[in-house]
């Protein structure tokens, strides 16, 4: 695994005072990905980890905008970084960005400010004119990274009340959080979600499609291609006996789950495979109620028979 220059992802070192985590929801977690937010907040609360939503956060700059106007997209992302840093009183905030697209764009801005001097000058100057500053102290983290590397699997296993025994989970990571930057996991064969699910007592489905494209925004533009890509993933997971696909990305969740009816028509199939956020499954194992965890929002209900 290539350790990118961003390896200094601000892990809590032994002896250091516990860091505060800032929470950057992004648009999805407030709309289509509500279940992700609901379960995420519950899970962190259950682990006694304090999440503080960044005050006055704005659009992350989104991956699609990045392709249109890189500088403006970075500026949007940088504002969020600056807000977190300022709200932490320069304390070195850790920003948890659960949506893969937000995570990547924020990382990109963080990296650009650190390494691309000219771009950094423009961004920092623009922020200065608006009374904002970012010194690089606030760092972007993925919730999986924080859960596995800061909090630790032991603590998570200890908190588990209703182990996901007998539930076969296919962990699906999507493309964005290990590529192009592999800050905490293996780019070709990521492990953290599998390790987490195993710690909750679930059976792990070994499948090679962990990071293959879900179709991304193609589902909205060239639907036939987008859906085909999603279908390939679901079919393989089903074939390998998965009870549920665990995801860490609102767009992946949306693509894989909401179009199953349409896929069934196109491919003359009979897919009915639940696709849940990994935080929902965690919450389940922690014994939190399904309603609180947003399970009612799923189009394909999770057959929890095997689970609890």
């Amino acid at each position, binding site marked *: 695994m290539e350790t990118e220059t961003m390896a200094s992802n601000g892990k809590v070192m032994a002896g250091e005072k516990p860091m505060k985590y800032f929470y950057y929801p992004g648009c999805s977690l407030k709309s289509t990905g509500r279940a992700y937010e609901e379960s995420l907040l519950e899970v962190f609360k259950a682990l006694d980890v304090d999440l503080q939503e960044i005050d006055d956060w704005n659009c992350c700059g989104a991956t699609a905008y990045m392709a249109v106007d890189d500088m403006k997209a970075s500026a949007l992302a940088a504002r969020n970084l600056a807000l977190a840093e300022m709200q932490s009183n320069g304390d070195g905030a850790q920003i948890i960005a659960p949506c893969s697209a937000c995570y990547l764009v924020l990382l990109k801005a963080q990296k650009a400010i650190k390494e691309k001097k000219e771009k950094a000058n423009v961004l920092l100057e623009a922020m200065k004119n608006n009374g904002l500053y970012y010194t690089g102290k606030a760092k972007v983290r993925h919730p999986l990274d924080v859960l596995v590397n800061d909090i630790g699997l032991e603590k998570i296993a200890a908190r588990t009340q209703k182990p996901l025994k007998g539930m076969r989970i296919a962990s699906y990571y999507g493309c964005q959080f290990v590529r192009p930057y592999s800050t905490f996991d293996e780019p070709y*064969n990521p492990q953290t979600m599998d390790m987490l699910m195993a710690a909750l007592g679930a059976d792990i489905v070994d499948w090679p499609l962990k990071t293959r494209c879900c179709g991304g925004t193609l589902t909205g533009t060239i639907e036939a291609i987008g859906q085909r890509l999603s279908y390939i993933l679901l079919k393989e997971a089903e074939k390998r006996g998965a009870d549920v696909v665990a995801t860490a990305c609102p767009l992946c969740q949306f693509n894989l789950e909401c179009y199953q009816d349409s896929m069934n028509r196109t491919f003359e199939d009979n897919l009915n495979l639940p696709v849940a956020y990994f935080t929902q499954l965690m919450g389940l194992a922690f014994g939190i109620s399904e309603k609180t965890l947003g399970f009612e929002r799923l189009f394909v209900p999770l057959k929890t028979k095997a689970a609890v």
Partner: protein
Amino acid sequence: MSTHQYKNNGDAPRIGVYICHCGMNIASKLNVAELAEYGKILPNVAVSRDYKFMCSDPGQEMIQKDIQEFNLNRIVVASCSPLLHEKTFRQAAADGGLNPFYFQMANIREHVSWVTKDFKEATDKAKALVSAAVRRVAQHQALEKKRVPVHSDVVIVGGGIAGIHAALTIANSGRKVYLIERQPTIGGHMAMFDKTFPTLDCAACILTPKMSAVKNHPNITLWSYSDVTKVEGFTGNFKVKIKRKPRYVIEEHCVGCLLCVDACVFKEPKFDDEFNLGMSKRKPIYLPFPQATPLTVLIDPETCLQLKRGKCKQTCAEVCERRAINFEQKEEEIEVDCGAVILSTGFKPFDAKRVPEYGYGHYNNVYSSLEVERMVNASGPSQGEVVLKDGSKPKSVGIIHCVGSRHAKTNKYCSRVCCMYSLKLAHLVKERTGAEIYNFYIDMRTPGKGYEEFFDKLLKEDVNFIRGRVAEVTNWAMTAKEEGKLIIRVEDTLIGSPRRIPVDMVILSVGLEAQADADEVRRMFGISCSKDGWFTERHPKLAPVSTMTDGIFLAGACQGPKDIPDTVAQAGAAAAEALALVDKGFVELEPDTAFIKEELCCGCRTCIGMCPYSAISPNLEKGVAVVNEALCKGCGTCVAACPSGAASQNLFTDEQIFEEIEGVLTYA
């Protein structure tokens, strides 16, 4: 040279200046005639000329004649780099009767004509350099080269085919050789191969006779299962410390009858066999492989009950009539003197787990090439049968080239042997199984003698060749036909399309890497490594087996990926170089070494820590530093570091350097 009496042409400098045209190299880019004229007006110059080729015989004779005629006692030649011809002109001065160090060279080719476009600027710069050389040479002193006797034995580190060949070459010439091998047996990687490309000779058949020749040679002392721990000294006079690891079997007593192995309390082999890469099992007492040299068993302290827990029936010791087994054996340390060292420490195969997308260690039936070498070997874990984990024969096999090579993420360099061994494995696997074989390559690189013909032969054997770097190996079946297979996904760059190739077995043609401890070895022997970890030769073309440390030579893959013919050729070359050194009986030391002016030295030891060659030591009685001329390389670090100006260097004294600077600054 020390006995030579040079003529004394008076104390006052009388300098001859010679401007070389180097054909058109210099003459077309600056005004050589003007430069020669300019030479005449410089202080102490008795004669100044220009000539077409100063390095030619007439050029050199001109210098010698002028020394007689003009009573010259200093010579300046303005020409090419001193790296090329400093020796030539020093010799010309010596042949003319002068001490050869009354000479200075001005580089007006590499430093002027090759890099300066403007004619006048070039002429001016050349004038400045000639002025500097003339001022400097007036300060030169007569120096003498010293001779140091050379020890005639040679130490060779690493007993693969390179070390074996070098050892035999030197031993056959009558010199004594110590061959040190880390493993319990010599033979290296070549001993693990089945056949060698492109002739398909049986590797063992050509290697094992050489292995026994090493063992039986009266001039070779073979120490296997031993490590070099320390090296001291300098060219011609090294002291090498060797640690002999305990085998718990007395080598002189053991005849390799293997009764002890049969008698071991472990009825069945139980532990991973290193020689077969863990694909078969061995007992705690074992012989690495049937042709091991020396043919001496050894006991692995990690798995032997007696050595681990002190509790065993010791049936092995009981059964040995020659009383060879000795559980009390301890590590031994030996020191030997030698005149030269050959390093032939080889390579390690790239670990395919570092390319996780190819599924090595994840999927059954994904093998590394070395594992398949063992598999196709008749004395290997499957007696030469190529079989899948379930025992059946593969019907289709994919061979992926360039695993770990030619990639920014792993190693950027081409590992040079993988194309050819992939072809060889394709042939052997097809011969044994009749399977459909797919070779996935980026380029085919078959540049050796008979190699391209071997490639042609494979093309005619109905092996498939697909050009493109494989993206991944998975067990993701999309159709019923693919079910249960390993799927190779690749962009076929010749048809311009992605493909999925289902196969039963995948062979990863891993590249070659420097040994994990290459950096420690490099430090121990005072040589250097390239950024990839391979030992660096002194010059890639003109000194390919020498290193920057005199007396240390390289052979085989420790210098970079190499096939067997190249390794053997290079081992022969290293042996010849080592012989040339030890046979001469002495080494001449360049006199441009550092020395300490004792009256100025305050004994602060700054220089001792700075010296990269460990050439300076303290004289405790006098409280001053002392330079060992034999070790000093004349780098000048101590001279620059010395706070009291006590350290000085022949040919680079303060006076000489200041005069040179003055010369550049004051040219008119």
